[in-house]
């Protein structure tokens, strides 16, 4: 065997095993690190999922009734008839403006003076609505809800105005989640994000050896680069994979998210995802020289894109080529699709071949890049 320097040759099982056991010892030595690698995904998933309700959302409304007639009160009554709005009275335009600015209300409704007279004379009275347009999604929902209540009031009030059925009617249906629960949709989507915790631990483990100089000690031993990286990879992938069980238990038992797929498939594809992510983490760990820099870079690479680019909230717009390329280079993008499909759609492997293949390709790309950047650093 002898000192073969630091080249890429065939791997030696023995050397690989000793690196692996060293990595495991690093994880197991500190009980706190151990718990954090295994349990932090489940803990964070629980904390993140707690904020979602399965109920519907309410719109905070302020009403300025300038008319003060029975009819205007009836209009307000229509708004409060169900749980869509929480209504409070307000007087004055400035009150509405300042409440909107201070975000105390989502919308202000102004009923003009002479509202009842206009309606009783058979013509159309206009009601002004001032809406907080900052959150467009919430604003859109509030608009739809207000329009619906206004036409309901119209049908109640006017004898001549019969609410004819609309010519075109939409029968909307939400597939997989008929009762449209935010929580059921978000919990599987958050799983890739919570798994970035143990993955980033791998990036830091690599940066630590470089910062402390123990990497150079390793270079002096017959251990080869591939064996070293392989040991790191297997240690962190397997340690994170054990964390899947508490995550799955939290999702299914605590939050009652339906699990319609195959657990073995989930385990296999999670491994696929973890390989790609740890590969990316190795690249991050190779670029930097200190753990501090590794943390900053991991936050920028794993954290913000995971929320904004992964399709968790906004599905990826595939007509935007650059955006699609960047999103697809992130392992979490494909895993969001996979987790939602396995949990909610009960998808089989054949239906998930595309994201699975993408993840496999990403593992190869990132691991190769990791190996290449690693060699450069040592030379």
């Amino acid at each position, binding site marked *: 065997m002898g000192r073969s320097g630091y080249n890429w040759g065939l791997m030696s099982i023995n050397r690989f095993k000793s690196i692996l056991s060293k990595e495991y010892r690093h994880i197991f030595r500190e009980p706190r690190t151990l718990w954090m690698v295994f349990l932090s995904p489940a803990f964070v998933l629980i904390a993140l999922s707690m904020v979602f309700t399965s109920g519907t959302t309410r719109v905070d409304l302020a009403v300025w009734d300038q008319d003060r007639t029975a009819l205007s009160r009836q209009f307000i009554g229509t708004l409060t008839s169900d749980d869509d709005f929480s209504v409070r009275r307000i007087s004055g335009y400035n009150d509405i403006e300042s409440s909107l600015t201070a975000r105390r209300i989502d919308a202000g409704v102004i009923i003009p003076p002479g509202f009842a007279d206009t309606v009783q004379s058979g013509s159309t009275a206009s009601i002004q609505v001032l809406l907080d347009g900052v959150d467009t999604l919430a604003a859109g929902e509030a608009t739809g809800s207000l329009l619906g209540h206004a036409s309901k009031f119209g049908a109640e009030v006017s004898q001549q105005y019969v609410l004819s059925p609309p010519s075109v009617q939409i029968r909307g249906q939400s597939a997989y989640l008929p009762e449209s629960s935010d929580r059921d949709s978000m919990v599987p989507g958050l799983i890739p994000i919570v798994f970035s915790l143990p993955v980033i631990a791998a990036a830091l483990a690599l940066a630590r050896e470089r910062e402390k100089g123990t990497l150079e000690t390793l270079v002096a031993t017959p251990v080869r680069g591939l064996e070293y990286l392989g040991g790191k990879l297997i240690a962190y992938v397997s340690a994170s994979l054990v964390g899947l069980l508490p995550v799955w238990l939290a999702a299914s038992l605590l939050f009652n998210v339906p699990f319609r797929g195959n657990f073995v498939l989930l385990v296999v594809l999670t491994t696929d995802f973890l390989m790609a992510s740890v590969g990316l983490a190795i690249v991050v760990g190779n670029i930097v020289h200190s753990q501090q820099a590794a943390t900053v870079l991991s936050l920028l690479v794993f954290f913000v894109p995971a929320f904004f680019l992964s399709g968790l909230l*906004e599905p990826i717009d595939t007509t935007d080529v650059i955006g699609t390329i960047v999103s697809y280079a992130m392992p979490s993008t494909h895993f969001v699709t996979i987790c939602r499909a396995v949990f909610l759609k009960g998808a089989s492997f054949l239906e998930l071949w595309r994201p699975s293949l993408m993840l496999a390709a990403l593992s190869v790309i990132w691991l190769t890049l990791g190996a290449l950047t690693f060699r450069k650093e040592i030379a």
Partner: protein
Amino acid sequence: MKTMRKRNFAASSMNNLTRRIVDHLHRIWGLALKEFQQLSRDKLLLAFLIIAPLMELLLMGALAGGGIRNLPLAVVDQDRTRASRDLVAKLEQRDEFRIMGYGDSVEEARSWMQGGDVSAIAVIRPGYGAALTDPARSAQVQIIADGSNQVASTVTLAASEDVAAELSRDLVASHQSAGKGPVELRIVARFNAAMEDQPHSITAMLAIIVFEIALVVAAQSIARERENGTLEQLRVTPLGRLDLMIGKALPTLVVGLVDFLLLVGLVVIWFDIPVRGSVFVLTLLTIPFVIAQIGWGTLISLISRTQQQAMLFVFALAMVEVAFSGFLVPASDMPGIMQAVSYVSSLQHYLVIVRGIALRGASLRTLWVPAVSLAGISAGVLMLAWLRLRIGLDSDSLRQRLVRAWRHLGARWSERPSRSRPDGHSAKKRELKREPA
């Protein structure tokens, strides 16, 4: 005579006090200088701290946050009339949709959705066109949205309702000149007349990036000294606890504020989102926000023994804060208990402040609640960090201390009966216990 001495004493104690304060400032400045030197030595880290956040906001802002667009839609047109083609054209005109393919049956389209190729299906049954010509009947269109992404599914259904309403209006107008009905809503979107999504998401990204940078710098600065053993060296210098905390906090505050100002500049100049309120007030309120992260960072670095642990704590905290920030769900839509918990999230208050000042043009007076909460949180977290610092920086964890205190208590308890009953039984037991040690 007596009063003279008193005055003298008072004067000398005043002198003492000022001298002590000057001493402290001197030490703090020394530590802060060392921190800045360390930062400037690691050029790569400095680049990550200053340039990377800008790049990140540039990239994220350009690629994401533009709202939901071009959702892949499958059409199952079993009617095949002019009216049905008209409907499909109307759907295609919407920004939200992009027609991915035409299916022969619902089952076929459902299989596409199952594989994730389409996120919505429009089913037009036979007889749709015929129903339209009959004013007494209404023509029905079935829209199946992929509920596995709740946000997209809500947008899908809302957009198709819009299309249906538009078609109905057109048809009624062409049939007869029917009245509008007794009420009409004139809806004005304040602060965002064009209903653009970008300002909403860019402000969230800005707040999250400032948050994470401040947290990481603060958390790793002490954890690093601890892991390398240089913290003990610092502790034998005349630096007090408070000196240590302030000296460590100053560089983070500077980095956080510099990043904040650069990011705001980027938002205003590049993304063309004007800050409607006062930039000065916004910067002023960023200070307690960054200080709160310094408090968290210090606390994290005091309870973790390695930088790896500190990083895991940082990420866990960051995710929890994002969850409670109102970015994923508005705070008012959270379950009751979680709403209460979300008040502890500094990111939530800061997001309200940033959006309030930048997008709604709010003043400090309308934003006093989040401003005071932010100040309260930073004071509270700093207090916790200071208390943790008082417990001691040695390698003992809190758990070890508790275990030792418990053992100590147990030992005293077992000693008491042995004194009154020297029958040798409990003494033997103690003997046995002592053996392994």
